[in-house]
C-alpha cells in the first residue's frame, strides 16, 4: 500500500518547475493520503497511520520539488530504501564526494538536518537548505489548511 502511494508520486516526476505551484503539491498529497488510508480506517493504529502520513508528506514534497534537487533525490532514496532493502543495484551511486572536515558544529547540524547533506560542499549545502526550507514551509502550510478544513467542517452553519 505504501509502495503504491510512493510509486504514484514518484512516477509523475516529469514536471519541470513544480514546487512553486502549491495546488500541485496539494493534489499529490491528497492522492497519497487517500492511498495511505486505503487499507481500512480501523485496521491500523493512528500512530502507524501518522507515520505513513508523514512519509507520504515527505515523499510528495520531494516528488514535487523535482529530481534536479539533491535533497529531493536523497529524501526519496531514504524513503524508498526500507521496502527494497535486500537488492543493492550493481551500478553504485557515487556518494560521499569530498567528505566533511566537520569542524563547525553548526555546519554539521545543518548537514544532518537537510536530507542528503553529508556529501555536499558548503555553498551547495546552503543552497539546498534554502530550497528545503521553502518546500517545507509550503508543505506545512498545506497540511495546516487541510487539517483546518477537516476539523472545521462544521463551521458552515
Amino acid at each position: 500500500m505504501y509502495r503504491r502511494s510512493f510509486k504514484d508520486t514518484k512516477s509523475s516526476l516529469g514536471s519541470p518547475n513544480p514546487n512553486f505551484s502549491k495546488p500541485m503539491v496539494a493534489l499529490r498529497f491528497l492522492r497519497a493520503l487517500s492511498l495511505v488510508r486505503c487499507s481500512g480506517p480501523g485496521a491500523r493504529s493512528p500512530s502507524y497511520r501518522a507515520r505513513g502520513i508523514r512519509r507520504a508528506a515527505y515523499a510528495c514534497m520531494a516528488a514535487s520539488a523535482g529530481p534536479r534537487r539533491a535533497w529531493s533525490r536523497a529524501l526519496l532514496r531514504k524513503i524508498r530504501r526500507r521496502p527494497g532493502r535486500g537488492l543493492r543495484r550493481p551500478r553504485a551511486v557515487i556518494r560521499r564526494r569530498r567528505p566533511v572536515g566537520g569542524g563547525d558544529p553548526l555546519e554539521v547540524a545543518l548537514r544532518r538536518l537537510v536530507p542528503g547533506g553529508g556529501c555536499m560542499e558548503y555553498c551547495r549545502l546552503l543552497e539546498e537548505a534554502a530550497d528545503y526550507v521553502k518546500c517545507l514551509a509550503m508543505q506545512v502550510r498545506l497540511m495546516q489548511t487541510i487539517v483546518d478544513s477537516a476539523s472545521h467542517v462544521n463551521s458552515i452553519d
Partner: protein
Amino acid sequence: MEPPRSSGVGIDNSGEYSPEIAETLRFEEEIQSLIHPSSFDGSAAPTGGGSFTALLGLPANQAVELLHDSGAREPLASRIRVGGHPVHRPFHLPLDCSSAFPSNATLVDRAARFSVFAAEGSPASSSGRLKAEPQDSDSPPLDPIPTGPAKRKDTGRSKCDVRLSLSFKSQAKATAKKSKNAEENTDGDKLPYVHVRARRGQATDNHSLAERARREKINVRMKLLQELVPGCSKITGTALVLDEIINHVQTLQRQVEFLSMRLAAVNPRIDFSSLDSYLSAECGPVTVRNGPGGVVVDPSLWPTDATAEATRRLLVPQFWHIDLVPPQLQPQQSLTTWERDGAAHSQLLPNPTTSLFLYDPANSGNANVPHLTAKLKTAEDRALNL
C-alpha cells in the same frame, strides 16, 4: 569549478585583448601626459570620497577639452577622429611602447593615485561599468570622443588601465602575466558569476581570486537563507544566523510530524475515495491536454490557497447530508460517545501539544471545544450508523 573556468576563458581571450590593453594603456598614458599634474590634483581633490566613475569622468572630460583646445594634440586628435581603420592604427603603438609598458613610472604613480580612490569607490557602480568595459574593448576603440558614449568608453578604458595598474601596484611586478590576471578578472565579470573585484592591497593570485569568489558565493547564499527564515534579517553574524536557520528547520520538521499525527486522527472520518475520484475527474481531461507533465492542475480550478475551500466543498456533502445537530448538546453525552468509539483515539488524548487540543475533551476548558467535539461526535455517530 567556476573560477578556473573563468580563468580559462580569460587565458583564451587574453590573446585578443592584450593588444587592446596595450593600446588603451598607450592611449591613457597620452591622455595623462596631456593632463597637467596640477590640474589633475585639483580635479582629484574635490571628488575625494566620490564614486570611482565620477572621478574618472572628470579627467576624461578634461582630456576631451584639452584635446579639443590645444593644437599640439593634433596628431592624437587626428588619430582619434579617423574612424576608418580603427583597429589597425593602434596596433602600431604597442610595438613602440611595449618596452615602455611595464616600466612607466609616471603611469604607475598616477594609477596609484587613482587606486586610492578606487578602493573607496562603490563596487556596484564599478561592477556595472565593468560589464560595459569588455563591450567597449570589443567595439572599435577610436570612436569620436566628444560624444557621450565615447566618454563612457574613455572611462571604461581608463578603468581597465587603473585595474591593471592596481595589479601592478599590489604585486610590484610588471609583467604581461599580471595583465592577463586582471583581464581574467574582467572576463570573469562578463560571465554570469559572482563578481569579484580586486581591491587595493589584495593579491590577485589565482588561488585568492577563487577563494574570494567562493566566499562571495557563500555570502550570497547566506543572504538568501536569511530572507527565507523569518526574523533572521536583523541578526548579524554568521553563527547566530546559522543557529536560527537550524532552529527553523527543526521547527518545521516537528510541525510536519504533529500535523501528520493530527491528520491521522482526523482521517478515519473522512471519505477520501470520493475526493480522489472527484479530483481525478476534474484533472483527467486537464492531464490529457497537458501531455506528459504528470499530474497538472487546471489553474482556474485551483486558485491560490483554494485547497481549504475545495476540501471543504468536498467534505461537506459527505459529512452533512444529515441534518446538523443542534448545538445545545450535553457535554456528558459527547464524552460518552467519545469514549465509546474513542478506543483508537485514546493514544492521542494525553498528547500535550496544543494542535490536538480540539480532540481532547479532558482539556475542554474552552466553551467552544465541547461544542465542536460534540458536533463532530454526533456527526460521526450518524455517519457510522448509516
